[in-house]
């Protein structure tokens, strides 16, 4: 009796190549999206740099795109220095991390080391609620509730707190980021093999000592990766700062003053009827491109480290 081995036959009821082709094209679409982002951003950015010197953009410390418009010549080096913007972004991010860092870290330690599985099942999703709140809602909270409240507090303490203080935006941004840090930290801590824990507890170390001396150091690379991801998220955040942070560039280290960020400027520059080719509108693209590159680099580093950390722990 022969086993019939014959020519390749389309025994399936559907056209295999058509469907597989659709799958393949879907993958290409994702590549096309990245390409489109890079192309459109860089195209406008290059146009921008024909009007404004890159050196001015990257190293000037004044940002007031209005002056460029007032001066008649388009190429006048109206102030497009982006340093105050990046400073504002980093400053608010820093404030946010001051809040989210410790809280996220400690919460994660608690959920991964102290809670019973049944409790964990409730607490973890509750923390995730913070991640699900739309950023416009956070922005509203920061602008309408927290900002004025901080200002009032300041008045009673004799301090001058702007309604759009960096502190207000930073605190709320911190709230938003807590779940990001806590869930990644929790994942990493859970990935630490129980053999390590058992080794420490087995010689009489307390739970806290095990955490401090064994688990946290082992989990550190992953935790750091999580922090970097959170920073990248904060840097790219738009709505909270649009609603709660200021519009004027301000190079200050005082959290009670108002600063502006890269994302706020991108929005402000593009809302309203502008000529699409003016230096103002183009500067928004230049800012966006810079933002894209920065977050890409940060996320790439973070993701790589995170994967490595998890893999190393799993061994």
């Amino acid at each position, binding site marked *: 009796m022969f*086993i019939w081995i014959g*020519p390749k036959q389309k025994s399936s009821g559907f056209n295999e190549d058509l469907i597989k082709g659709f799958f393949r094209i879907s993958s290409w679409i994702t590549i096309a999206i990245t390409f489109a982002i890079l192309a459109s951003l860089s195209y406008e950015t290059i146009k921008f740099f024909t009007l404004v010197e890159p050196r001015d953009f990257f190293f000037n410390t004044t940002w007031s795109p209005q002056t460029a418009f007032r001066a008649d010549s388009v190429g006048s080096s109206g102030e497009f220095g982006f340093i105050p913007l990046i400073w504002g972004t980093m400053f608010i991010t820093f404030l946010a991390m001051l809040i989210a860092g410790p809280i996220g870290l400690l919460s994660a330690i608690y959920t991964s080391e102290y809670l019973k599985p049944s409790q964990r099942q409730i607490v973890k999703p509750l923390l995730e609620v913070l991640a699900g709140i739309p950023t416009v809602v956070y922005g509203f909270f920061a602008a309408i509730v927290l900002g004025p409240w901080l200002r009032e507090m300041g008045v009673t303490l004799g301090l001058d707190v702007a309604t759009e203080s960096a502190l207000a935006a930073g605190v709320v941004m911190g709230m938003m980021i807590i779940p990001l840090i806590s869930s990644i930290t929790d994942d990493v801590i859970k990935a630490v093999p129980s053999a390590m824990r058992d080794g420490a507890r087995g010689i009489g170390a307390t739970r806290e000592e095990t955490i401090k001396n064994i688990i946290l150091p082992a989990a550190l690379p992953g935790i750091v990766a999580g922090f970097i991801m959170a920073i990248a998220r904060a840097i790219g955040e738009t709505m909270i700062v649009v609603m709660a942070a200021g519009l004027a560039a301000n190079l200050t280290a005082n959290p009670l003053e108002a600063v502006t960020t890269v994302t706020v400027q991108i929005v402000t520059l593009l809302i309203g009827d502008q000529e699409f080719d003016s230096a103002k509108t183009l500067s928004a693209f230049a800012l966006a491109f810079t933002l894209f590159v920065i977050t890409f680099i940060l996320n790439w580093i973070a993701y790589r480290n995170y994967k490595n950390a998890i893999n190393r722990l799993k061994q």
Partner: protein
Amino acid sequence: MVRDTLTLDSSAKINVRNLNIWYDDHHAIIDADLQIRKNNVTALIGPSGCGKSTFLRALNRMNDFIDDCVTKGSVDIDDTDIYRTQYTNVNNLRKSVGMVFQKPNPFPKSIYENVAYGPRLHRMAEDKEQLDIIVKDSLKKANLWNEVKDRLHDNAFGLSGGQQQRLCIARSLAVDPQILLLDEPCSALDPISTHAIEELILELKKSYTIVIVTHNMHQAKRISDTTAYFHLGEIIEKGSTKKIFDNPSHRKTKAYVSGDFG
């Protein structure tokens, strides 16, 4: 390598010649030669990691799914090399050379759907009645019909380990194979289920050619006609089961079957 007492049997159902398989740089199967006779149970034994499963999977080209796996040599089934033929319909090959895996792996569907999947795929039934007949037949052949006939539409995951494995056997039988490859089918089962399956195998060999990989030497002794001993990718010795176990020629074989090794 000791030549066995079987002469080159041209009526061998499967004739493996000079088979070499590499995983990346690791030479997993080295110069393997083996004849599998029709309606026999051939057991592949040896310590773990010696390539028995790899060899088995080469017989129905399941290794094709693994990246970095290179196969050289020939595997003739009924005198046709399943590797060299340019247009091998691999799906049809696997229909005729069925495989049952170590851990029972029913689909997350009903018992009926599990068995019906294969026949549906290969368009073996023209209507539902025919399909029902195929399903019933296969379950009967796998000695499972009586236990499930009243709950054909229950989820297969509700069955015990032994029943699930018999379901997997029924599933393979439903596509009308000629050869059955069993990869340590009982290693995840308790002794009673194991016994049930061994009985089943002895029945099935009347109609099918069976190759079984097993860790359990006693099992090989109980149910196989021919045995091949694998060691680090090579077939050290092959021959009738009685000879291999009672009077092995090679010292490595002797060491393994007497329990000094492995």
